[in-house]
């Protein structure tokens, strides 16, 4: 039978199985962020022309390990923790099938270790996309398959817990929006894992010698069903966290629960189709296929993101105005708790994700414009704008709340924590920007030596491109310091943090921790107002930048092609 404890901060009834599983998954995630982040730093230092740290073999090894450990292992372990949190805990429910959840955990961990060993051995530097005809050692694929099946078990436990919570009526009405967002992530995850199984199992057989041939185009089509969709799992999970943080810190309710849920529905319907934007220059696929999947469908998914981008700050504005922060357009924002890393991380990620990741994504996802930047370092620039300053920064932000709350400990380095989101967010935001700048000038991605020193035909990039790759290195160092501080703070808090003094003690100066977390995050309901003028002004600024950048790129395309 399930056992519970009551959280002294939030009043949540916490299933002890869920408690333990959330902790283990989250800690494992952070460990892999450390490993993967280190490899990222090595990669960035190698791509800094004046430093050029690693030799070619080690560079591709580090790049493979980086992509796998951060994109796959860090994000997905953290997301499994979030799935358990948003189901069992936010719904006040018991966790169903904890044994299966543990089997899933161990499969993921063992799978991740197997693949890491294969990569570190040096015979599997195929990068995380592992396109045939490049072949990795068989255990490289085996590890990923184990990891994916483990994650699928996690999704199963999540859906089962939702189902039982509903049956046992542990909550009233519809599930809260945060849980709905997590469910969106879980739904996309199931499709992601199925696509992965369809292609990676045969590829594994191929590496074992049981199959003679894997078709490259076929591989790319199906693999990106997994590769792209897994990014949409990240987006959905990250947005669920935004709503959660707005609720926890401000008691904010969504402006309209219906509109926000519909925006998540747009994700479920359309986001995964945009996988085709990875195939825009692939031969053999028709324009109808490419354009249907990347324009008509993609724009509807982007509409979903813009709705969230509007309603998350809108919900905060509405909540702040209710508390009397009504002066002018922006008092609600200037008086927000900018020194609290939970808020600062989330606010930065909303802005950076929109401006850096969002706008560049729509640009590149347009069939014609894609040609400007295809396979250049603009692409990593774009996705460090989504998955790093968006997802990773958001996960860091919510960790500053989850870890002290679940472990009931004080942060060990609260002073450092204040600066951490800015260091990491601005550092990696700059890195993304410089990579995009260099990519616009044609610098390739996944390339060990942009001077082409030992190639038959040389090519000189403009000096600005070299400069930007250098600045990218500097920014990456700044971001890495930010990441290191986060990891230090989390591990330190768990290991050596002082136990929290129960309730009574005054709340931390800047965090207006609302006792009504339980209310806003765990129930269905809207703020009941649309009076958010500040948010509309911000949204207009975003839209204008978006449109300008988009059309500037069309202009630029015309000059690249030189048709006149």
């Amino acid at each position: 039978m399930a056992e519970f404890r009551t959280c002294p901060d939030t009043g949540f009834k916490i299933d002890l199985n869920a408690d333990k599983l959330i902790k283990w998954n989250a800690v494992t995630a952070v460990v892999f962020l450390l490993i993967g982040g280190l490899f990222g730093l090595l990669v960035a230092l190698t791509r800094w022309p004046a430093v050029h740290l690693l030799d070619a073999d080690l560079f591709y090894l580090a790049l493979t390990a980086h992509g796998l450990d951060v994109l796959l292992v860090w994000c997905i372990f953290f997301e499994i923790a979030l799935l358990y949190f948003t189901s069992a805990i936010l719904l006040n429910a018991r966790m169903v099938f904890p044994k299966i959840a543990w089997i899933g955990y161990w499969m993921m961990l063992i799978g991740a270790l197997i693949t890491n060993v294969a990569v570190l051995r040096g015979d599997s530097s195929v990068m995380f996309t592992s396109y045939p005809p490049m072949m990795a050692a068989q255990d490289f694929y085996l590890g990923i398959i184990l990891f994916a099946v483990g994650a699928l078990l996690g999704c199963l436990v999540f859906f089962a817990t939702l189902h039982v919570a509903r049956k046992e009526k542990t909550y009233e009405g519809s599930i809260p929006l945060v849980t709905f967002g997590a469910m969106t992530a879980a739904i996309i995850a199931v499709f992601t894992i199925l696509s992965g199984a369809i292609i990676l199992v045969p590829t594994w057989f191929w590496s074992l010698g049981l199959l003679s041939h894997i078709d490259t185009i076929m591989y790319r089509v199906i693999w990106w069903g997994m590769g792209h969709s897994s990014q949409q799992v990240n987006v959905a999970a990250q947005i669920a966290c935004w709503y959660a943080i707005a609720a926890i810190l401000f008691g904010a309710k969504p402006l309209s629960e219906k509109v926000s849920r519909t925006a998540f529905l747009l994700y479920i319907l359309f986001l995964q189709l945009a996988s085709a934007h990875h195939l825009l220059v692939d031969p053999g696929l028709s324009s109808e296929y490419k354009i249907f999947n990347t324009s008509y469908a993609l724009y509807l998914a982007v509409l979903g993101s813009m709705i969230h981008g509007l309603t998350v700050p809108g919900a905060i504005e509405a909540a702040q105005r209710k508390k009397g922060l009504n002066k002018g357009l922006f008092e609600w924002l200037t008086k927000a708790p900018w020194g609290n890393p939970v808020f600062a991380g989330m606010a930065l990620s909303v802005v950076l994700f929109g401006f850096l990741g969002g706008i560049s994504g729509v640009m590149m996802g347009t069939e014609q414009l894609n040609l400007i930047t295809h396979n250049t370092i603009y692409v990593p620039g774009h996705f460090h704008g989504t998955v790093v300053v968006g997802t990773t920064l958001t996960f860091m932000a919510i960790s500053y709340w989850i870890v002290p709350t679940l472990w009931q400990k004080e942060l060990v380095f609260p002073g450092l924590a204040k600066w951490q989101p800015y260091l990491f967010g601005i550092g990696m935001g700059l890195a993304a920007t410089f990579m995009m700048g260099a990519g616009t000038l044609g610098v390739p991605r996944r390339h060990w030596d942009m001077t082409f020193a030992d190639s038959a035909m040389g090519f000189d990039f403009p000096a600005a491109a070299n400069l930007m790759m250098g600045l990218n290195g500097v920014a990456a160092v700044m971001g890495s310091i930010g990441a290191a501080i986060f990891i230090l703070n989390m591990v330190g808090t768990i290991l050596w943090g002082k136990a929290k003094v129960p309730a009574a003690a005054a709340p931390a100066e800047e965090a207006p921790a609302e006792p009504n977390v339980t209310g806003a995050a765990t129930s269905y309901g809207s703020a009941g107002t649309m009076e958010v003028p500040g948010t509309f002004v911000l949204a207009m600024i975003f839209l204008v930048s978006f449109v300008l950048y988009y059309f500037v790129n069309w202009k630029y395309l015309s000059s690249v092609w030189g048709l006149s």
Partner: protein
Amino acid sequence: MSDFDTGPGGTDEKIPFMQQLLDSPLLLLVIGIVSPMVLYIVWGVMETIAIPLAQ
């Protein structure tokens, strides 16, 4: 699907279609798998198979 018949409070009022849809994880899961399977994977695989092989 018994989930569809009664509202949160167990009232007899007709629940709007959209709300029924959004309240049903199973239905959403099916849609979220079938739609990209057909429009992205199956369509893409069919086009790939249709590419003639070099002789």
